[in-house]
């Protein structure tokens, strides 16, 4: 496949070098679907329909196949996320120790309109996820890729407040 063509893709064109390296690791290009999607999500923050079409073209499958994978894994976002994405655990240990209150606190304090998962200023987005394996520190959340446990209002403000200041 002529890579000129791939290089001209508006979203992933500039990443073709990396992507080709990944594809080379597999006997079949389609096997590179997950890593390529990660590249896309890390760059864009989320995976749009246009991104899926590009991924489909790069690895030689139909867009429907890409969408099957994207919709299967909740860690792929199908909607735009905030600059900082919060994955808040809602499973048993966290639920018992107050995940609901944590959720309500964050939503109230950091400018989420009711029913919305992204804050008004687009700085934060929140998503409720299943157990993230930090039950000993419940309630827990991931901000980006960093784990924060034993959440209390003070602790939340400490974590999110510092991020809040950066930008």
């Amino acid at each position: 496949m002529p890579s000129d063509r791939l290089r001209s893709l508006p979203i992933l064109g500039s990443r073709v070098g990396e992507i080709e390296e990944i594809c080379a690791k597999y006997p079949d290009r389609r096997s590179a679907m997950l890593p390529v999607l990660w590249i896309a999500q890390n760059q864009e923050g989320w995976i749009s329909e246009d991104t899926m079409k590009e991924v489909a073209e790069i690895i030689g499958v139909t867009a429907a196949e890409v969408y099957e994978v994207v919709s299967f894994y909740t860690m792929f976002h199908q909607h735009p996320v905030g600059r900082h994405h919060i994955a808040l655990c809602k499973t048993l240990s966290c639920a018992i120790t107050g995940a609901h209150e944590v959720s309500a606190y964050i939503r109230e304090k950091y400018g989420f309109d009711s029913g919305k998962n992204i804050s008004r200023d687009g700085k934060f987005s929140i998503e409720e996820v299943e157990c993230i394996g930090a039950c000993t520190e419940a309630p827990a959340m991931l901000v980006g890729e960093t784990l924060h446990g034993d959440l209390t209002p003070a602790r939340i403000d400490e974590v999110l407040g510092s991020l809040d200041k950066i930008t």
Partner: protein
Amino acid sequence: MADQSVHPSLKPAPEDVPFVLNGKEVVGKKGETIITVAAREGVYIPHYCWHPSLSVAGNCRLCLVEVHMPNPRADNKPTPLPKPAIACQTPVVPGMHVFTESELAKDCQSGMMEFLLVNHPLDCPICDRGGECMLQRYSMEYGTGHARMVDKKRKFKKPQADPLIDIERNRCIMCTRCVRFCDEVAGEHVMGVFARGADNYIGTFGQGPVSNILSGNVIDICPVGCLTSRPFRFKARVWELVQTQSTSVWDASGAKVTYWTRSNQLYRTTPPSRKYHETYTINEDTAEFIDNITRFGSDFPAHEDRWEESRVRIGEGLVPAAFREAVRQAARGLTRVREQHGPDALAVLVSPRATMEEGYLAAKFARTVIGTGNVDWRMSFQTAEASDAAALAFSHASGDLEDGFDAVVLVNGDYLHQAPVFAMQVKEYARLNEKPLILIGHHHDAYFAPHASWQLHCRPGETAHVLELLALAVRGNDNAKDQLSAITGAQAEELDKLLQLLGHAHRKGLLIQSLEDMNGANLPQDVPALLGLKSALGEAWDYIPVLRDRNAFGLYAAGAQPGRLPGAEGAVRKAWGLGESAALPVDSGVPARLLAEKIEAGEIKGLLCLGADILHNAPERERLVAALDKLEFFAVTDLFRSEITEKADVFFAAASHLERDGTYCDLEGNLARLVEALPPAGGSRPDWEVLAGIAKEMDGRGFDYSSVAQVFDEMIRLVAPDFAGSFKALMLKGPRNDLTIKDPGGARTRGPEYNPGDYRIDGAHFRWKADPLPTPEKASPAPERQELNEGEFLVTWGEHVQGSDYHLDRASIARLLKMAPTAEMNPEDAYRLGLEDGDRAVVHTGSDSIEVVVKVRRGPAPGVLYIPSGLGDARFAGLSAAPLARLEAVEAGKEAAPAG
């Protein structure tokens, strides 16, 4: 590239596997699954996700059975497996014991049924699947009859993705049959399973349509009411409908269908229904798929333009008249022209959708009653020479897919859209049996391209040259091989492998050639070139020409064209009551394609046209319609009023394909019955009655038929010597309603009963005995290649079964399906121009410009643009056939540049 080292036909036959099924000793083959062997043995194992034509998914778990395996640690005594096994995926093993009706198996079945119903809405009263639903049926047979589920059921929003197929996700049981069908059979992974776990749902990317000509089949293979037919939605309950086993009027592949009718109306068209539990119902495990045109395009007779009474011209207007009166007028008109201008001033046209009986009677009528050879059906060709090439092709036709093949060569064509079911069968046979597919020419069918072992591309006009070179190369001419490599760009070692494959004497091969428009100009060279290749390849190779016209073969066989009688001349003379010396014009006829010219020149003065669609669909329609004014007498049979019927002196209201009996022949030479599903509307009559009536009025002898069965009988005795197989079955079954099967279960069905997998119960198979054409000594000179500038293409126009058609335009598919014009191009060209599948572009040819959606496929050769003529907006009847076109991309969001 498929593995050519060990050819599948050389692999040893799989070993026998003896095992015990429900206490009975049975034998399977190594690698077979329990469910396949059980089905063969007549043991029904309930299943949803398993389908004989699809890969195994093993996700519904309804086929769980109890299995005991021989235990080597206990003297090989059968020991129960710790868990039940799914019959659709578990291979048979020697000595295993399978129980499909044990307590455990029954427990599994009812348990799985309960699971499947956890989220099921159970809205059977408003569900179109009711009455033929596998979920309903299994609930009765294997379920518990009550639910323990108390929680709220999951609910999906209803997406509106496809204009023809309705999706009701709440009813889906996630068997993924539809997904696998699109992926494997229809050839595109357009449907998918999205999300996860309890939120799983099926759909298409971006809510797009399921855009395939075979997509309608997902309706039948969906075991529940998730996918249903939009035109049929809420129209009727299936058990109230009468079923008639008949055949498609659209697909030249000869697809069998069931027409579902009630109170003089057609409700739906499906693949043939089957007897199940004493009633006839659609067969959820059907492998007899039909195309969307047959499924959604068979209801055109109900269109409001229908004229149901015969009419005769009085002054300026056509006034309703009794059938007898119309017959008298027609006979008088034809007699007058014959007396004044001689018999050759008259011509008889037969629609390519006419039955064999009608074609036969037209031929007999023209030759004996009028005394002319002017009878023809071949209007759809670009030139008269092309129609003669088609006759040559037919005389060599011999293939039959039923026999299978070891290799298949497809020359130029859009087979999926010219004979959809045939194309599907070829592709599926090649795919499932790992047989090599070889594509040759300037346009390859994109449906086959992904499965092709070899693709030899060339420019338009070079196909014959390439075929000749290939024939010479097969004969061992190395020079030809080098030229072949130069012209097609194929690597020498690829060609060596190909030649080795083709040269294998034991192989049974199939050569397939499209006789459609896209090759029109080149057919006179292409047909002999391929037949030359056939001779070079040897006896084991068969040849099938493909034409969209439904009954092309049948009309050819029935002698309804110049130069062809329905049988040997002596036999025909005898049957038609003609002495040795009586005139029997055979070769003198005017080809239909030259009709306009001959009328303009005043050589043809009277016309009897059976089925006005032949005029409406003519390539030179405008010219032909204008020419009709010059006729002294014009009689036509038609369903609808139109500008053509306005010009008629006598109009006969014709009975539609649903309203008459007859015989069709498909492109493999198999016969199929068209069976009367509805009484003729109003005063309409089948064309054979019109012909017999006029003939008798003109004192023709031998037209005293009282049923179409008598015509068939007379015809088949003449045509029969062309049959290779037996035609006894066909002769024994009259085509009328003596075939009606009254069913005690309430649902009624009529028509011949087709058994699963048995396509030939009512038919026999044509095999004409033409002498093989010699392989040329040397190839004709290569045509000069035209230099193409950036953005320039050689255009090849394609006719499409989904294309504009006089009848199809009046069917529900034309109302529902909005097609955009498309242009297919090779990935190479697309990359160079920076175009992507789905982009918009403008094609300028001559003085015309059209906006198209670009499709990037491996079908067209580099430098070739393939533009099929589709329904509605996608029709290009008026476009000049300029071979050279310039293509300009349209930037997203911008409007196309103005035409010019």
